[in-house]
């Protein structure tokens, strides 16, 4: 006979009535509530957004206030940054839950357009943006851009380059970039705007040229870190004299009172200006609302709001210049002529395939 005592001697406690009934009920109610939102049948517009949450949420709030259309943003997560929201969209291709994709760069959007995942729409927003910043077929529209630049720690740079540092920064940086880079930093080029930078060089220098440049930079001691923010921190704190990053990171450093300056990165005499892009996802069940958001994001109102936020994005369409800050006017003046990015889709794919081989050795 089985002894009850022995079987229960060290066995787990039987869950109480509370555990058996109350907790499952709580979870069930929560699951039902959570499942009701964001699902395909809900009234809210699901927006996948890679622009910084702190700034984009304000724009989406303003849209909600203006149109009454509720938005549910899914922000790019640092925890899964390498995957990126454009990759998630590809994985969800057969059953999309996203209605509008707000990408803070262009090349990922180009990839989605090439895969036939974007709904063509030539609304009021698309119409006000110049041709070089939008898709001819209306599958995406660019707005609010930022410059790729070299951020410089002024005291450290002067200390390293002496009298030469008194010359225009542009010229000095161009010379310095050909020398010792052990005091310089760049983000890993596998994602983000550094990948755009590399894809552009892939097209401009050719695969062999980029590979040689990459190897040479490493040989000259260029430090690689995990993102543009880390590059900014390294330079702002004086651990490195200069580094490649974006204008929004540079402004973050100036807002923190750091002694930094900048010079735009130029390739073939042209700057790298990277726009935000908005696209309506094909198959959305909320097409009208999605179009309204696409129009709003590419509107003057939204571009001005982004320009006047801390990230100081450059408006691409016509805006009232008097409403722009001194900082934005400065970077806007530097933003032309800009390297055309619309044709970089193939270069990005090829360059990334090579980079992954390099970094995963």
């Amino acid at each position, binding site marked *: 006979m*089985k*002894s009850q*005592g*022995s*079987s229960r*001697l*060290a066995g*787990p*406690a039987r869950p*109480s009535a509370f555990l058996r009934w109350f*907790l499952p009920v709580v*979870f069930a109610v*929560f*699951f039902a509530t*959570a*499942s009701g*939102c*964001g*699902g*395909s049948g809900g009234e809210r517009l699901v927006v996948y957004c890679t622009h910084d*949450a*702190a700034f984009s949420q304000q724009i989406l709030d303003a849209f909600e206030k203006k149109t009454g259309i509720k938005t*549910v943003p*899914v*922000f*790019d*997560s*640092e*925890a*899964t940054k*390498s*995957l*990126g929201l454009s*990759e*998630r969209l590809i*994985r*969800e291709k*057969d*059953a999309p*839950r996203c209605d509008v994709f707000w990408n803070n760069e262009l090349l990922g959007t180009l990839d989605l357009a090439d895969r036939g995942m974007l709904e063509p729409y030539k609304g009021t927003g698309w119409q006000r943006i110049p041709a070089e910043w939008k898709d001819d077929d209306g599958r995406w529209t660019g707005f609010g851009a930022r410059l790729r630049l070299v951020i410089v720690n002024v005291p450290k740079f002067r200390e390293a380059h002496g009298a030469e540092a008194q010359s225009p920064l542009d010229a000095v940086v161009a010379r310095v970039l050909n020398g010792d880079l*052990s005091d310089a930093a760049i983000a*890993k080029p*596998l*994602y983000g705007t550094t*990948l755009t930078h590399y894809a552009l060089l892939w097209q401009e220098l050719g695969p062999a040229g980029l590979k040689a440049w990459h190897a040479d930079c490493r040989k000259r001691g260029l*430090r690689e*870190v*995990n993102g543009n*923010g*880390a590059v900014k921190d*390294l330079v702002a*704190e004086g*651990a*490195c004299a200069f580094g490649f990053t974006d204008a929004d990171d540079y402004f*973050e450093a100036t807002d923190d009172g750091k002694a930094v300056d900048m010079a735009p990165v130029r390739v073939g005499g042209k700057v790298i200006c990277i726009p935000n892009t908005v696209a309506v996802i094909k198959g959305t069940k909320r097409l009208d609302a999605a179009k309204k958001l696409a129009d709003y994001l590419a509107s003057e109102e939204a571009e001005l709001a982004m320009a006047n936020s801390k990230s100081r994005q450059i408006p691409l369409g016509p805006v009232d210049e008097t409403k722009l800050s001194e900082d934005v006017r400065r970077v806007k003046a530097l933003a032309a002529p800009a390297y055309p990015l619309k044709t970089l889709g193939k270069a990005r794919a090829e360059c*990334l*395939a090579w980079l*992954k081989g390099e*970094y*995963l050795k």
Partner: protein
Amino acid sequence: MRGGAVAVVATALARPLSSLALNASGGAGRKALLWGLLAAPFLTPVILVGYAWFNFSLSLVHHPAWNEAFYALLLVFKLAPVAVLVMCFAPTHLTREAIHCRRLARGGGGLRDGLMFFIHGPALKSFVAGALVFFFAFGEFDMARLMNVDTWTAKLFDAQAGGLPIVESLRLVALPLAVEAALLLATMLLLFAGKGAPHLGGEKPRPLGPFGRGLCGLYLVAAVAVVTAIPLVIVLRGTLAGFSAIRFETLRDDVLTSVLYAAAGAAGAFGLSAWFTRRTAKSVWSKGRFVAAFLMSVPGLLGGLVLGLLLLGLFQVRPLLALRDTPVPVVLALMLLFLAFAMVLRALMDRARGAEGLHSAKMLLRAPERELRRSGAGLVWEMRTRTLLLVAALLFFWAYFEVAASSLLAPVGHTPVFVQLYNQMHYGRTAALSSMVCIVMIVPVIAAALVTAAGRAWVGWSGHG
């Protein structure tokens, strides 16, 4: 390599620290303080540690070897408590009588006997302790990424750039997974094996001398300062000033969402581990159940990112697609992620408590005298319920602070609060962010305290029944 070195150092440190913990003199308050100091580094969320030391790590950009060493030091500080826990509570195959005889013989009996004694006693405990530390160190990702340290987890993360088929991800993770699975299997065999394996007899290690106690004290102060106090001061600076900027209604909903995800995930892992480690009348474990337990633990060893991707793909397929926008995927991920640890903790817990003593205490609950029943309830609390709650709290804590799988699988509009804060941390520190981190960190502590109080009350009440 790094994981192995961290495991060896942490296990070596655990020996004197466990002696300090088990031989602590003074009142309950002093003992609680000592255990609190021991546990604090492990309980400090890894992301806070990495975030706090992010700038310092960047300053070592010209000295990658120093950066590596600093990262390894943080891992040792953070994971040594795990080894201490195992040293204090892991089972040994030596009976109390054997240990006593060995001591009486003062090490006599030849080299072979000495070696066997070592293998079945200290070496066994060290293996389990080292294995657990290795699991954590080997699979660590968040701190490594923030500190720009090269690890296989960081490489796997980079490999996702531009998209990577899940089959390819699994191929990349195959070797590390095999290492972890082999170690898990060995650990589970040691912990679950043999119905004749005796429970820990409560044999205390020899007390440390004043010099040893001093060194251990210094170590504890350093570990708590580096891993807990300094990060908390850095991250929570300006907390008070930021409270006015918080949208409490939104934060409350987000925290509640996180608590429910974590509670459901932890409850799932806890419940499954309880079922798997349940003993039958005939043997300690059945082979079928052991194999099932092991197989179910393996997906968790993939880590949050790969497991998240795997489930993301799985819930794209009909009929599971209907569940994609529900909390099911994220809860399932949390449950699987922590199942292996739940299993090991349950096994440790079962072995640490004296089954006969617990049975006697439970019999007291049926005594006719109220005082006896109350004493029995107190004993049951001390011997079983408190430890059960501790294991459950630990699982809840891990699930609450998980980011990778949660950010991939949470239903739209219901992102766990810590994922949101983690993202905001990358935009720089603000007073509002500090305040939110403070609230988010306090919640699991309050939850644990409430559950503990409720558990104690429940046991007390059942003693009155």
